[in-house]
């Protein structure tokens, strides 16, 4: 077990090292074998670790060596396997493996094949370090590592301006969040004297009253980190632009795994959040606002990947909403199901882009007939994200809505408002996803050329992930069906009941639960029907066109994402540029360059004088030496 955990993170690292140093000299098949093989090995070992944990559900931590020991704080390089880590480990390696397979086909014609795969492997290494770490510092290392890989992969086509700029944008916005995270870690180190989860949480559990104030501050700092990484308000702006990267990267990093790291971290630190009702309220409100805000922006996008990007932000908002009302297991369940259907959606969009050579959904259309596999898997995952019963998203989203409703009923009346937002978001989600589906697959083909189905290496992952969207939901069946809720039971050790901290589950009557479930299905169905009526055939678009023509200002505002980017540029960006200009001209130009140039001038002056000693004559140099010796001799004796 100890060796297996270590090998899980080291295998992708080895793959990265091999491909980054020798990738250019290896044949493509070799690069593929190294990259996919190392991740495959990780996935197999992850299955083994999952099996071992399921047969004996005891959290285990293994220490490999001590990184740092200063004063009383000791930071080991240690990995741990508990329920939360193992859940993440399972889907990260599983989805990651299939996306590696998919990339073989998608990146087929790419010049920088080895570079792409080396980055992808490095990402796997960092992400696995993040989820398996057993202390905050190691988690931060993984956290920064995934940020770096995200930057590298968004800017993969660095010869063009948009991807290069987007990579920088993602990195900088993430850094803002990381700063909050780092401050949170410093707080933990000073107040708890250790960074290991086990010790920190044990101290917090033993005496929650002693840390009441500081725990809330720590929780908020950590949440700032989470908003950066998981693209929540107000730091969400980088994610839509992250779509500049290759599509499998969007699927892996910007949908399935990395962006959920924030949710993972909040769930991991739930004891901090539960110490402070205010922090929880902040999380819930930010989550709900992000969900509806992003969903409304997704309504008018025409770039297929941007629609999916906004839907990712919106779904992440759902997860934080769940975490904010204390339903951490439910949040993680949504992370889990979301990984499958969103990865499948992105891979499906990659397959479409591969076939049509455009991102604009209005240049696709009628692809139902030519791309059968892509069509069916896309339909499956659309049903899943919209929340149609038996597909995965239905179970997790319904659980979130029910949790919020129950939380509100449990004397937090203001939370009914959040519930309302979540329901509206559910309608919007269903609407824009089916809009996407009908525009792309319905009607007649409107683009150029003749699209054809993608190769097997791309369709196989689609089939696997799409098929699973219809299955994984059953891991978290609501109680009313009188079936075991496996997910909740699995994650139970995550949220221990502690006297003096907020609870994590609120119960509803069965009748209420049925009503909510039927309600959410109806809402999703209404969204579907509305989209079907407006976008099913090319002819039915006329109403939409008329509407946008009648309200150009409304449409433009939504289409331009409420001008948030422009707002940031005018305020934060302008301020920053002003400060930079001041630093450049005054601080750098006068205060720093002045002395430097002055010293340079003196050096030049001395050199100009002394160079007359160096007349290039060997014998003069000999004379100088002897002169020096003579002076020394007279000085010594």
């Amino acid at each position, binding site marked *: 077990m100890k060796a297996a955990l270590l090998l899980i993170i080291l295998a992708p690292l080895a793959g990265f090292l091999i491909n980054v140093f020798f990738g250019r000299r290896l044949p493509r098949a070799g690069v593929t074998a190294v990259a996919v093989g190392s991740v495959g090995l990780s996935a197999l070992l992850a299955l083994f670790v999952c099996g071992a944990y399921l047969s004996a559900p005891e959290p285990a931590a293994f220490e490999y060596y001590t990184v740092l020991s200063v004063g009383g704080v000791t930071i080991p390089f240690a990995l741990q396997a508990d329920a939360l880590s193992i859940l993440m480990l399972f889907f990260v390696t599983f989805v990651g493996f299939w996306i590696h397979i998919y990339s073989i086909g998608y990146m087929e014609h790419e010049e920088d094949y080895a570079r792409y795969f080396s980055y992808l492997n490095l990402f796997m290494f960092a992400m696995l370090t993040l989820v398996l770490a057993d202390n905050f510092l190691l988690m931060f290392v993984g956290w920064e590592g995934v940020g770096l890989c995200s930057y590298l992969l968004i800017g993969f086509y660095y010869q063009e301006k948009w991807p290069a700029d987007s990579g920088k944008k993602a990195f900088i916005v993430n850094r803002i969040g990381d700063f909050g995270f780092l401050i949170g870690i410093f707080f933990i180190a000073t107040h708890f004297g250790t960074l290991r989860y086990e010790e920190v949480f044990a101290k917090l559990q033993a005496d929650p009253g002693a840390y009441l104030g500081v725990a809330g501050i720590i929780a908020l700092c950590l949440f700032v980190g989470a908003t950066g990484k998981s693209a929540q308000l107000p730091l969400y702006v980088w994610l839509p632009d992250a779509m500049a990267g290759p599509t499998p990267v969007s699927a892996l990093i910007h949908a399935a795994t990395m962006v959920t790291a924030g949710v993972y971290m909040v769930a991991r630190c739930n004891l901090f959040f539960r110490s402070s009702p205010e922090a929880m309220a902040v999380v819930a409100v930010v989550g709900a606002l992000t969900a509806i805000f992003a969903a409304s922006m997704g309504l008018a996008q025409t770039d297929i990947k941007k629609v999916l990007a906004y839907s990712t932000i919106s779904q992440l908002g759902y997860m934080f909403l769940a975490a904010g009302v204390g339903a951490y297991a439910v949040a993680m369940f949504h992370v889990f199901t979301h990984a499958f259907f969103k990865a499948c959606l992105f891979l499906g969009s990659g397959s479409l882009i591969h076939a049509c050579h455009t991102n604009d959904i209005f240049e696709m259309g009628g692809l139902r007939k030519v791309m059968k596999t892509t069509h069916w898997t896309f339909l499956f995952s659309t049903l899943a994200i919209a929340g149609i019963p038996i597909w995965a998203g239905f179970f997790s989203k319904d659980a979130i809505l029910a949790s919020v409703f129950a939380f509100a009923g449990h004397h937090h009346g203001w939370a009914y408002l959040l519930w309302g937002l979540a329901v509206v978001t559910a309608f919007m989600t269903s609407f824009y996803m089916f809009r996407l589906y009908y525009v792309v697959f319905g009607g007649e083909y409107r683009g150029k050329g003749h699209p054809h189905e993608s190769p097997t290496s791309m369709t196989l992952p689609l089939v696997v992930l799409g098929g699973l969207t219809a299955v994984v939901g059953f891991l978290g069946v609501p109680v009313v069906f009188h079936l075991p809720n496996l997910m909740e039971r699995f994650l139970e050790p995550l949220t221990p009941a502690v006297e003096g901290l907020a609870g994590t589950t609120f119960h509803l009557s069965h009748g209420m639960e049925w009503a909510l479930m039927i309600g959410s299905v109806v809402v999703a169905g209404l969204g579907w029907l509305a989209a079907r009526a407006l976008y099913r055939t090319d002819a039915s678009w006329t109403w939409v066109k008329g509407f946008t023509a009648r309200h150009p200002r409304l449409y433009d505002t939504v289409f331009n994402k409420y001008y948030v980017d422009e707002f940031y540029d005018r305020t934060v960006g302008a301020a920053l540029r002003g400060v930079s200009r001041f630093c450049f001209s005054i601080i750098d130009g006068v205060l720093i360059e002045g002395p430097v140039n002055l010293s340079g001038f003196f050096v030049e002056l001395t050199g100009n004088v002394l160079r007359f000693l*160096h007349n290039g004559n*060997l*014998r003069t140099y000999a004379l100088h030496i002897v002169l020096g010796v003579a002076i020394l001799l007279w000085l010594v004796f």
Partner: protein
Amino acid sequence: MIFLALLLGLLLFVLGLAVVMLRRSAILLFLGIELMLNAANLTFVAFSSANGALDGQIAVIFTIAIASAEVGVGLAIFIVLFRRFKTQSVDDLRILRW
């Protein structure tokens, strides 16, 4: 006898020094250096004899070895320079001068 050896060493050393500082031909500079080395060797042997210890003689062995190494490399450089500049005068070798 030992005093005489030391005096001779001094005189030979100064002669070598004069050659190095005053002669123009590179090959003569070599000879001057060798002369100085020999003077140093002589003083080493003289002191060794005076003290009755052998360490001075060991130093001479090292000096001779190092001198031969120096001559080998130095002559190689000299040959290259002579081929290139067609002169043995060190005064003409000043192309790197400012």
